[in-house]
């Protein structure tokens, strides 16, 4: 959640700053309204949005699949059956590393079906990955012969 806040700030602040400056330059007096609005927007985005996003972000393991639910405005649900998992990466950005977090990236054969599990504690990442891989192996083993080929 901290990561999101920092990351959000990284691109939102310059964007809104540019918007404000151009607004002042172009619109003169009325431009200050835009500045005020963008400040308000910035505060919302910084204070409220990451928290809301964090509260709405959840994932869990069912019998068949890895399930995800996320999104504040656009709500998304995804299901990645263990049987279809092709690859699991542990990804860490610089801020992730600072905070001791990692993202698990679960890849299927479909280019668009990849999902990420962000904000997992460093110590847990290998365990969760092993768990997912074990379940994937179990699922593949349950389908004999030709069936075990997911693509």
């Amino acid at each position, binding site marked *: 959640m901290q990561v999101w806040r920092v990351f959000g700030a990284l691109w939102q602040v310059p964007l809104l700053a540019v918007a404000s400056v151009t607004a002042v330059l172009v619109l003169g007096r009325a431009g200050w309204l835009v500045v005020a609005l963008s400040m308000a927007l910035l505060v919302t985005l910084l204070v409220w949005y990451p928290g809301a996003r964090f509260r709405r972000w959840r994932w869990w393991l069912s019998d068949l*699949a890895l399930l995800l639910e996320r999104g504040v405005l656009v709500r998304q*649900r995804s*299901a*990645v059956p263990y049987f279809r998992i092709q690859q699991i990466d542990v990804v860490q950005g610089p801020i992730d590393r600072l905070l001791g977090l990692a993202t698990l990236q679960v890849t299927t054969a*479909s280019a668009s079906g990849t999902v990420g599990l962000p904000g997992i504690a460093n110590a847990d990442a290998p365990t969760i990955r092993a768990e997912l891989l074990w379940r994937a192996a179990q699922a593949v083993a349950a*389908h*004999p012969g*030709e069936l075990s080929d*997911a693509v």
Partner: protein
Amino acid sequence: MPSDGPVDRRLHPASILLGIDLRQTIQALIFPLVAGFAAGGRAILVILAVFGAVALVGRTLAWQRFTFGFDGEVLRVEEGVLSRSHRALDVARVQQVEIDRGAVARLFGLAALRVETAGSSSEVEVELRVIPLADAEALRDELRRGKAQAVGGEGESDHEVGAPERQPVLEVPLRHVVVASVTGARLLVFPAIVGVGLQFVGETFWAPFADRAEDLIEGLVVGRTGLPGIGWQVVLLGIVATLVAAVVTAVVVGVLRDAGFRIERVGDDLNVTRGLLSSRSSVVPLRRVQKVEVHRNWLRRLLGFAAVRVHSAGGSGDADRRVTVPLLPERTIDELLAEVLPGVAGIPALTAHPPAALRRTMFRWLRQAVLIGASAIIAWRYAPFGVPDVVPWLAGALVPLFAVLAVVEYRQLGHGLTARVVAARTGALSVVTSLAPVVKVQAASTRANPLQRRLGLIIVVAHVAGPGGDVVIADTGTERGRWLLERLTEHAAEPVVPEVRPRMLVVGEPPSPGDDG
């Protein structure tokens, strides 16, 4: 992995010339050529000669160092002059095999063999360019046999290890190819361009053009001056000529590409052959079909035709290499689908979407109309060049037109899910029905933005491998969407692969766990 087989076969020596990659050559040539032009006439010849010599030596070495071999299970390729690469390709992983014959290669009885596996890289996995046609066909058949054995060895379908019989599935007659090119998407854009062009010419350049034409004619034939119709006739003639040229080009291109289009069932594979001068023959294993799309634009709908595109998970999404049936009568679609998607009788009964979805399509179309209208009005008011007064009115006329299109799109919206296949239909002018076998669904997801949530709508996506893209069920009811997500997840987690039966056998739908729809 079995022990290493021999890797001692070579490409045909002609590949020294025919294997040249045109794009690379041009890229490599551009800089020396520009430099040569700058340096003067003689330098160009020298540079070309040096380049040619170097290229010839390089190609010869490359040919000498390119070897391949197939031991019945693994296709091995070793290549590279300076950096060597060794590749081994398990035959069970093959997605698609193609024999491609350019016009020159055909003259000399040669062919290029292309093997694709699943993977998102846009490069073809193995390309043997060029080998004698007989070798290419032999190797293709060997690959097929190897695959049949690899699959059969694991407990199924060992009934055809010998020479598999060929059964014709579909032939597209030449006149259908012609109709396909005339009604193709490329040409449908054309009337629009001509319309806009007509508008533009008529309103902006009309006056000066007419003046000039009149002047010209005045100078040529005295006595016929001031005839106001001449300019119009010239413009009209130009437009008709362009149209005719476009139609002729489209037909020629279409016929060259798709003449003799034929699909055959060979064992468990689909064999697709097409092309007039440069021919192409692709083999798509039925088990590798990821997605099938039925395309019907408005013109083809009027005539009762459709185009069908078959996607495997082969790496390259190159439009030229996809298997597309250019045109077939609508009543035969189900027959073809039954052939391409094992265990599927045809397009399943599609469920219509809730009326709220109409508000979404209407919103999207009207948003576009408003955007176009707004930009038209802005251009009309502020543009430095004269925009004719009729433009804003035309933009305004788009609103009712787009509203009608929104209703059409809503009418076309539909989806279906059976134990075998998931299907979705979208589009207003060009209606596309996408079908994916549920055993090929890799993952599933839903999403809904605030507006959709208020309307109780949801988008369901069945993620499919390969460059063909996903099956997207747009704007179905929330409850239904959740239900679809659950079913799709179950299907993806517990695949029941339908047996690929010999042809003409009606395959019933066996009970599958968790299916109640």
